[in-house]
Every structure is written in structure tokens, then in C-alpha cells.
């Protein structure tokens, strides 16, 4: 079997960085809380934002970072056919950050006249890529899926300074319909210009036009926007550069998605 065929559609979705790929998301039941409590989450891969109608999103790489930077383990993790669900017992005051970070290499080459494709890590690629391979094309992908929940006073969530990240100048749990929101996109911890951003309000299945809001980050990595309607929003950001972590790769595709809740004024 070709390595490509052994990959689950999930891995492809996770590693794919095209804005046209399936949407990947973590959906919290609440984002702003005034007392410690459980919050439940859906994790899925689907075309329609926050409508679980395709595949569950595996959460084995999920990290829940507590306000004090410790890691919180998810509880009651259940993988269904259409979504994964889990709970988190939020006991601290401040902002919890949930993230799934994935990275890998995508490759294609020819062995004689036969075309080969690959998705996985560098070590595996070196094992599988024969010396006589021709037309070798290797790209690196890194994706990050996030959401935030705050108990009490919001705190500044930490950054990994790796790959494409968002630094929320307007706190991600402090978004109100109609008010200006400033976000900053960073690549490896530095402000990144030219990041392509798409923002889609949830429940897109109830309208003919998903009404995506398209933006590009400026020289300082910032975008300013106002979301006129309250609701759950899905933000997707993409950029490609040549800062590869492995010499085999030519290009690096970075993707970032976050679920944000905008409350009514």
C-alpha cells in the first residue's frame, strides 16, 4: 500500500493548510465564567463550522494550559463517529488555553515512472525515500488549533514562540459585538506580515453565503476588525515561508485556527 493511502483523512485534514480544506475546530460550551466549573468541548473536522457532520478530531495531542501554566488533563474523553467530546474541570481563576499542535512533512517523488506520496515525520521520510528517487518535492506543514476559556479575571495566555500563533491584544475572552478587536499574528514569536485570515461566524449552515471575512495581517502582524453579530466564530490563518526545520523540505506551510466567542453588547 502506498504510504499516502495509509493515512487517515484526519491526518490529512490536520496537516493540510489550505483554506479550502475541511474546517478543524474545538468548540467550548462556555468561554466566560464567573465561578470555577466544568466546561465541555466538541472537537471535529467538518465543512460547516461547528456542525459535526464529518469526522471526529482526535485529541491525543491536546494540551489544556491552566492560568498558572500547569497542564490540565481532559476528562470523560469520548470519540464518536462525528465528534470527540471531553470535559475540563476549570478550578483556577484566569484564562485556560486549549491547543492541538501538529507538524509533519508532505512529500511526493518518482521511482522510475511510479509516483509516490508521503505524509509523516522526517525520520520516516528518510527511511522511505529511496536514493534513486527523482522529482522529489518535500514540504513542511505545521498546524495549531486553539480555543480559550476564562474564569473570573482574564490572564495573558502563554505563547510557544513556534510556528504560526495569535497574540490577542483584545483578550480572546473579551470580545463584544461591534467593538474593535486587534489581533497580532506571529511566526516563531515574531510579528508576521501577509498572514491570510478568514473569519466565519458559526451556524453557517443556516445561510446561503457563509459570509467569510477575509483579512491580511499588516507589517506589524496585526489585523483590526469588528464583528457586528454576537456568536461563535471560527478564525483560520495561513502563511507559507521557507524557514523549514528539515533540509529535505523546500517550503513551510503554517496554519492556525481558533474558536472565538463574541458576546452581545
Amino acid at each position: 500500500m502506498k504510504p499516502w493511502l495509509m493515512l487517515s483523512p484526519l491526518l490529512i485534514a490536520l496537516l493540510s493548510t489550505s483554506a479550502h480544506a475541511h474546517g478543524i475546530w474545538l468548540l467550548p460550551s462556555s468561554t466566560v465564567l464567573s465561578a470555577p466549573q466544568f466546561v465541555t468541548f466538541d472537537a471535529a473536522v467538518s465543512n460547516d463550522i461547528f456542525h459535526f457532520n464529518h469526522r471526529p478530531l482526535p485529541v491525543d495531542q491536546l494540551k489544556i494550559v491552566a492560568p498558572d501554566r500547569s497542564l490540565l488533563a481532559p476528562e470523560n474523553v469520548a470519540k464518536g463517529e462525528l465528534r470527540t467530546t471531553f470535559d475540563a474541570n476549570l478550578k483556577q481563576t484566569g484564562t485556560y488555553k486549549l491547543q492541538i499542535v501538529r507538524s509533519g512533512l508532505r512529500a511526493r517523488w518518482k521511482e522510475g515512472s511510479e509516483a509516490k506520496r508521503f505524509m509523516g515525520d522526517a525520520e520516516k521520510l528518510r527511511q522511505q525515500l529511496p536514493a534513486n528517487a527523482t522529482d522529489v518535492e518535500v514540504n513542511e506543514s505545521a498546524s495549531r488549533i486553539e480555543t480559550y476559556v476564562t474564569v473570573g479575571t482574564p490572564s495573558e495566555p502563554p505563547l510557544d514562540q513556534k510556528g504560526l500563533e495569535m497574540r490577542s491584544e483584545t483578550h480572546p475572552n473579551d470580545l463584544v459585538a461591534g467593538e474593535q478587536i486587534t489581533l497580532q499574528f506571529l511566526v516563531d514569536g515574531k510579528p508576521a506580515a501577509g498572514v491570510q485570515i478568514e473569519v466565519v461566524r458559526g451556524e453557517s449552515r443556516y445561510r446561503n453565503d457563509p459570509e467569510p471575512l477575509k483579512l491580511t495581517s499588516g507589517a506589524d502582524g496585526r489585523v483590526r476588525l469588528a464583528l457586528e453579530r454576537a456568536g461563535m466564530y471560527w478564525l483560520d490563518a495561513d502563511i507559507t515561508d521557507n524557514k523549514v526545520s528539515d533540509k529535505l523540505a523546500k517550503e513551510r506551510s503554517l496554519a492556525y485556527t481558533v474558536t472565538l466567542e463574541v458576546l452581545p453588547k
Partner: protein
Amino acid sequence: MLRKVLLGLSTALFSANLMAAEMQIRIDIPAMSVAEYHRPYVAVWIEKPDESIARHVAVWYDQAAAENKGTKWLKDLRLWWRKGGRELQMPMDGMSSATRQVGQHQLRVDDATLRSLASGEYRLVVEAAREKGGREFVKIPFRLPVSVAAQRQQKGSEELGMIQLSLQP
């Protein structure tokens, strides 16, 4: 006799000058014809023109609930929560108390509190959020220091009845 009257008059004038400024707030919690009624959570505060909180006045919530569980719904007072409620520890002496029944309720902001605020424009804000009901806020502008006695009022549309603000210099 005349002397007595004059003395009385001057005492009245004198005490008027010394009288402390005061703000009286009257909040009307309207009756609702609903199958399941819960008393609303209410927050009252004084805000600056930039909408930041100058002074918390009161918050009425389910303070008696076991294990402080009533705080779970404080976030529904969305505006208050975001502007500063989330930075407070509940219950708070002299500020927080139990929810109130339908009817009129009085609150008072004393001279010392009013004097502690810089001269300028302010707004009194009253926000109400009701379990299985709606949420609403009313804002009434006023100026400090209070120079003349004044009364302002504004009516809520659903969750709040008439809100009355009386200012005494």
C-alpha cells in the same frame, strides 16, 4: 420672637451649607407574568465617560446559595462583569447582597463616596439579568460635584422598571 426666628433661619441656612451631598437611587423591579419567575441579578455602578467603572454601588445576587454557588451566574450581568465585576471577590461587604423581590428598592451613595470622585461627567448604570429571562441595562448621566438638587429618571423596557436618580448638593 424675631430674634428666635432669625436664629432659626440662620441655623437652617448654616446647616444647608454643611449638608452632605447625597445620591438616592430608586430601582423598580417589575412584576413579570411568566410561568417560572426568578428574582433578577442586579448590578449598580457609577461609570466614567469611557465606560470604565468609577465606583461599584451594589450587586444583588443569590448570596445565600451553598458554597457560593450563586456566583456562577454573575457573568450574566455581562456589562458589569466585563467592566470590573470579574475583578471582585464575592460576597463583598457593603456592596453585595441578596436578590430583591418585585417592587421599589432604595440605594444611597453617601457624601464621602461622591467626594472621592473627581469633578466631571458620570453615568449611573443599573443592569439586570434574570434566570430564564432577559437582560437589560439603563444608564442615567449626571455631573459631579452636585451643585443643585436634581432628579433624573429613565425606564427600562423589560427587566427594569423606572430607575430614579435624586441628587442632593
